[in-house]
């Protein structure tokens, strides 16, 4: 029994190795075909009708249907085909596409992720091919600029503004004249609005919300050209200290402490009389808390004037696309004034073109505060490789109340600096 065992085992090993290496060789061979092509501004244009792949993350059926309809309309007009895929996990599916060397041609590209993709050459810079590129709001174009080059055009945007629960407002004896204009005003009204089960201002956590105070105080997390971390500057620290003081005194609170996932939920459930959110709060309140009466006003000014944060997503076109010309043409049609207004109707986004502002405002007068923010809104930190650093400071600011600001900001600067120098 024992004798044949030994030779058989060697055969097993040899076979496994042979099989393994053969398979590995074929796998490498398959991947070897993708060598990076240098991004040129002359678009790759496939002749004849093309089949474009489009990937986007949808907020719901309304958005899915509207985007599909718009893509189909373009396909019908031009004789091409567009295969639309709704991503369930946008980051992951996009990453998979690029890793396979077969990415979607057109896709949603979030401003906070954009720099990573621009840096590694995944994005095809097509903004210079859009004739009326200047029509897009300047801060938004700035957001999608990496090392002096604008890569893509924003599909829509929103800015942060102040939502006020009008019932709570009246109950506290406040009038339209009391709408806060300064930080001092904000603290005053927040104090008046703070009652037993309700705080004055409820905020989502993280720098995407407290960042408005930083901007209003003339600060930012990195310097203009993104070479230096500036979190320890007085402007940033003072702004956070203002929020911290109000949280300690009890008139501001963060959503988790109000047993809510985000500011909108705290606002909807009446645990906060005011919150700072973008226009996405409209749909959310309509859906879950339809009976909440509220209005949206511009954020109060800080010591250094007006300031807010803008959030935007652009239409990315991949460098690896075989039909870039057609993809850019599709993007042109998707970002036209008419199309953007149609999207606004369907799923409540704000057009990214200045020429659409007037029509939009007529239709949705209650959104004036969001649109006003477009002129002075600050985009997200758009330097590559900072995700980890931002996630770190966000996790530390979850407990802003007890945080040692100096220490938090110093460690942000250290971490951000080493990431910026990479």
């Amino acid at each position, binding site marked *: 029994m024992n004798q044949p065992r030994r030779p058989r085992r060697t055969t097993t090993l040899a076979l*496994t190795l*042979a099989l*393994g290496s053969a*398979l590995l060789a074929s796998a490498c061979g398959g991947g070897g075909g*993708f060598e990076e092509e240098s991004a040129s501004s002359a678009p790759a244009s496939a002749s004849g009708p093309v089949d474009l792949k489009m990937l986007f993350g949808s907020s719901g059926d309304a958005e899915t249907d509207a985007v599909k309809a718009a893509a189909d309309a373009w396909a019908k007009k031009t004789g091409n085909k567009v295969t639309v895929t709704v991503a369930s996990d946008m980051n992951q599916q996009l*990453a998979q596409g*690029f890793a396979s060397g077969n990415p979607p041609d057109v896709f949603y590209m979030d401003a906070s992720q954009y720099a990573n993709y621009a840096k590694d050459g995944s994005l095809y810079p097509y903004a210079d091919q859009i004739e009326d590129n200047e029509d897009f709001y300047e801060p938004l174009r700035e957001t999608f600029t990496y090392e002096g080059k604008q890569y893509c055009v924003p599909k829509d945007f929103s800015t942060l503004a102040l939502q006020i629960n009008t019932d709570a407002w009246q109950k506290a004896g406040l009038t339209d004249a009391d709408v806060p204009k300064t930080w001092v005003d904000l603290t005053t009204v927040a104090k008046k609005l703070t009652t037993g089960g309700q705080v004055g201002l409820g905020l989502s956590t993280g720098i995407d919300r407290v960042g408005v105070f930083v901007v209003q105080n003339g600060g930012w997390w990195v310097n203009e050209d993104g070479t230096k971390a500036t979190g320890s500057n007085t402007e940033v620290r003072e702004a956070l200290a203002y929020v911290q003081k109000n949280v300690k005194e009890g008139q501001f609170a963060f959503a988790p402490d109000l047993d809510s996932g985000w500011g909108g939920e705290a606002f909807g459930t009446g645990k906060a009389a005011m919150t700072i959110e973008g226009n996405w709060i409209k749909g959310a309140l309509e859906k879950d808390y339809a009976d909440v009466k509220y209005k949206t006003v511009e954020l109060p000014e800080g010591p250094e004037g007006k300031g807010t944060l803008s959030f935007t997503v652009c239409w990315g076109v991949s460098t690896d696309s075989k039909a870039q010309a057609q993809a850019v043409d599709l993007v042109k049609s998707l970002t036209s004034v008419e199309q953007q207004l149609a999207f606004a109707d369907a799923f409540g986004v704000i057009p990214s073109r200045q020429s659409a502002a007037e029509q939009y405002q007529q239709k949705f007068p209650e959104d004036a505060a969001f649109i006003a923010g477009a002129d002075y809104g600050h985009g997200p930190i758009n330097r590559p490789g900072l995700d980890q650093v931002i996630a770190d400071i966000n996790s530390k600011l*979850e407990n802003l109340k007890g945080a040692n600001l100096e220490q938090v900001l110093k460690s942000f600067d250290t971490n951000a600096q080493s990431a910026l120098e990479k």
Partner: protein
Amino acid sequence: MSTVQTAAGPSTGRAPQRAPGKGGAQRQTTAGWIFTTPVLVLLGLFLFIPILMALWVSFTDWTGRGSPFSSNVETVGTENYQALLTQEGLSRQDFMTSLRNTFYYVVGVVPTQTVLALLLAVIVNQKFLKGRTFFRTAFYFPAVVSSVAISLVFLFLFTGTGAVNQFLAVLGIDGPTWFSDARGLIHIVGDWLGLWTIDSPPSGLADTQVMSLSLWEWVSGPSVAMSAIMLQVIWTTAGTFMLMFLAALQDLPTEVEEAAMVDGANRWQRFRNVTVPHLRPTILLVITLGVIGTWQVFDQMYVMTQGGPSKTTLTPAYLSYDAAFTQKQWGEGAAMAFLLFALIFALTSLQRFVLRDKDEAATRKAARVQARAARRKGTAA
């Protein structure tokens, strides 16, 4: 494939001279290989090659664009591993945080779920228990429900105003807002006992840094949020392991138990000296599977907390995913996966060694010594 030919070549050439029995054995081997080829190909394609590819990626600066084997992907040596282990920085800090969290998670979950599973198995194995089938199904039920669905239910149960807190309120306890509470259990207990106050930790602990985390952070214990996840995992997996114990218990011959009874052993003695020794291999299996599964925990974090609050539910598996897909640090993500593999491998080996059957090991050692002595005698002769 050439190896196969050389292995098979000479034997077919010599086949006519061979005894017919041997040729048959060879044919059987070939047939065996043919039958196992589909599985080998599948395993190779979906297990072996991806692992090798990931190993390669962990030594490169691949950004996730195109093939990791293309010429513009550069190898960076062990840089990714260094960033996680030896270099001061955010990568190491996050990785160490995730190891700390998971350590407390494993220490909390594995013993509890093993004991609970054994207890449940003993209960439902009683012959005179009414509604045995019902209880067996009820205990096993959580294991067959998708962990994503259960996670969502737990999110609702453990909200600040959820069922759990309302129940606690009845008992006069003011429950925490579970999934947003980052305080560590050991910190909380120390605070109760008056050893320290959470808001101003003792400077001896807070100022000593070990591997990018202060001692104070190392000894935090699982956060309240992590504890809620631990409760959920214990509840879901205990059923699966109960089934394993149950199968082993039913293997236990009644005669042995009866013999113990005749010898005058009471219930506890029978459990301690008859049942548990009989279950030893199963206990080893359950603990091994438990340790491996808990170190790899991912779905609960992905669905429920995404690593928050304050990174206290970050685990190596989730961090590896996040590093690769969100931060596009594929090399670091892959390196984390291999470090986790090494850790699990080491722990499992250690545990096998500690829990090995000492009698059997002794017998085997004696047999080896004997065999060696016999061989020496043989060569001498």
